[in-house]
């Protein structure tokens, strides 16, 4: 960490030295040209330009490294304007005194007569400070923008990795439950075992190959849910009453893959699989224009919930997924009554 800080400080200092070196060199050339007034610069012009630069370096550096970072960048605009004005007035006056009195003491053998009047010097001084401020802000903006882009790339990469991680958690979780279902059918030597295996294979094909994109069509996602509910019914045929109603206006409506499956899984896990009678799962899915609504309701066993908690890994993953893939575009509500549990998910894509 300390090494990183040292490196970053060293880099910042190198950047500042390079920036100032280039800026002051260009400034020297421009001022030399201005003070020489289109004639070939003479020794006295070099002396005068160096003297002028000396008087302007302090206010410019004060502006760069104190006023801009401490006031302007912290959005203290009024204080910055006041500080900027005081800076100009103070150092312009010092500049005038310097060229009226001190320069003759420093360079007694030189006669700086026909250079710019005090009014022109004030003008050059002020314009120079304004221009250098704009240059500094432009360069800072350039680096800020570059940094922001780098941060954004990094953030995107992190989100991608997080999504991949979440999806990789869903798949084994689902597989584990499904194998349990087939295991139960096989133990009972049920006829439906082979159908269940085919259905599971359909589900897994979807999970492994088709869902490996950022969005899938709602039609495919409904097929998955239908396959899953039918698959689960092999196990709970006699005990559960499962209804799945949907009404969609656009079959190609795009949705994040495997978004709804954890909710259906949970309903089977805590509802139908529970130790209660007359279990049910009511699934309603509607989609019109940009509004997608998914509601799943089931009755539940108190014992099961007390033992394991309802949310489980599936709901947690779903919430995380929703925050990443539908930020500010979704509503996720879980309501629990005495015997029923309802989850409602709304997605309103912009």
């Amino acid at each position, binding site marked *: 960490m300390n090494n990183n800080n040292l490196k970053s400080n060293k880099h910042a200092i190198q950047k500042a030295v390079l920036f100032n070196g280039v800026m002051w060199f260009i400034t020297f050339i421009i001022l030399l040209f201005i003070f020489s007034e289109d004639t070939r610069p003479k020794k006295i012009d070099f002396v005068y330009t160096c003297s002028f630069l000396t008087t302007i370096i302090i206010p410019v550096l004060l502006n760069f490294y104190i006023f801009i970072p401490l006031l302007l960048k912290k959005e203290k605009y009024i204080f910055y304007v006041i500080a900027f004005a005081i800076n100009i007035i103070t150092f312009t006056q010092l500049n005038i005194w310097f060229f009226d009195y001190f320069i003759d003491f420093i360079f*007694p*053998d030189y*006669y700086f*007569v026909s250079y710019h009047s005090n009014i022109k010097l004030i003008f050059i001084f002020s314009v120079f400070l304004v221009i250098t401020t704009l240059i500094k802000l432009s360069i800072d903006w350039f680096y800020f923008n570059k940094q922001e882009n780098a941060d954004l790339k990094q953030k995107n990469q992190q989100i991608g990795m997080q999504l991949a991680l979440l999806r990789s958690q869903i798949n084994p979780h689902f597989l584990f439950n499904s194998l349990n279902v087939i295991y139960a059918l096989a133990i009972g030597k049920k006829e439906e075992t082979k159908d269940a295996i085919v259905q599971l294979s359909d589900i897994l094909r979807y999970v492994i190959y088709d869902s490996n994109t950022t969005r899938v069509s709602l039609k495919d996602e409904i097929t998955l849910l239908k396959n899953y509910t039918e698959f689960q019914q092999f196990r709970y045929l006699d005990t559960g009453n499962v209804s799945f109603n949907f009404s969609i206006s656009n079959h190609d409506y795009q949705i994040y893959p495997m978004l709804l499956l954890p909710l259906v899984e949970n309903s089977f896990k805590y509802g139908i699989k529970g130790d209660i009678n007359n279990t049910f799962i009511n699934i309603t899915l509607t989609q019109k224009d940009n509004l997608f609504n998914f509601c799943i309701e089931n009755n539940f066993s108190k014992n099961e919930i007390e033992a394991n908690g309802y949310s489980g890994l599936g709901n947690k993953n779903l919430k995380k997924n929703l925050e990443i893939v539908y930020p500010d575009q979704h509503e996720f509500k879980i309501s629990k009554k005495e015997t029923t549990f309802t989850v409602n998910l709304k997605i309103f894509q912009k």
Partner: protein
Amino acid sequence: MKTFKPRLIIFLLGLLFLSSCVIKSLHPFYTKDLIYFEKKFIGNWQDLENGSWQILPIQEVILKENKKTNPSQLDKDQLSIYNNYKHGYAVYFEKDSTKTLFLAMPFKIKNQLFLDFTPIEDSESDSLKNSLYKMHLIKTHTLAKFDIISDNEVNIKWLASKKLEALLNENRIKIKHEKVGFDETVLLTASSTELVKFIDKYMSSKDEDKWKTDVEVTMKRIHE
């Protein structure tokens, strides 16, 4: 042509010698706030080379030339000239049967008196040259250090141009100027404010010979 060429060369050499002696400027060497009228200079004087100098307050001369007794009687243009130069001197210089008239404006910098000389046309000198010739002339200002030694003796030293040329050649001075004429005489084109700045700095110069000049006049008062 054969006789003309040597004459021209002699004339040009003479011109070179005369014109390159003192510093000349397009603008006066003073600013109004520095004007300092010294009464003691008024009167008739004679220099060591038998030149006669008559010094009069310019305001008297302006009134007399315009045949007025009071400035309020002057017209607008005359009054403007009167007000601008009322603290100056009319300097009549007569030598070797030639007579010239100068306007000399007295001013003080750091307690040192100076005179800014500029020629004025008068009827006598006018008659010597035709109008076409006069059209080609422009009056310049010269700077002289003015010392009142006593009530009866003054000394005037014109600032030598070689001093300024040396500074220019050594690139130690930045002052607006042009080199004009055959002899490339340095003509200062700097403003009066800049010229005052130059004099101020020049006075502080450590050069012991800074006032050394070829054009120096010591005058003694003529008592009539």
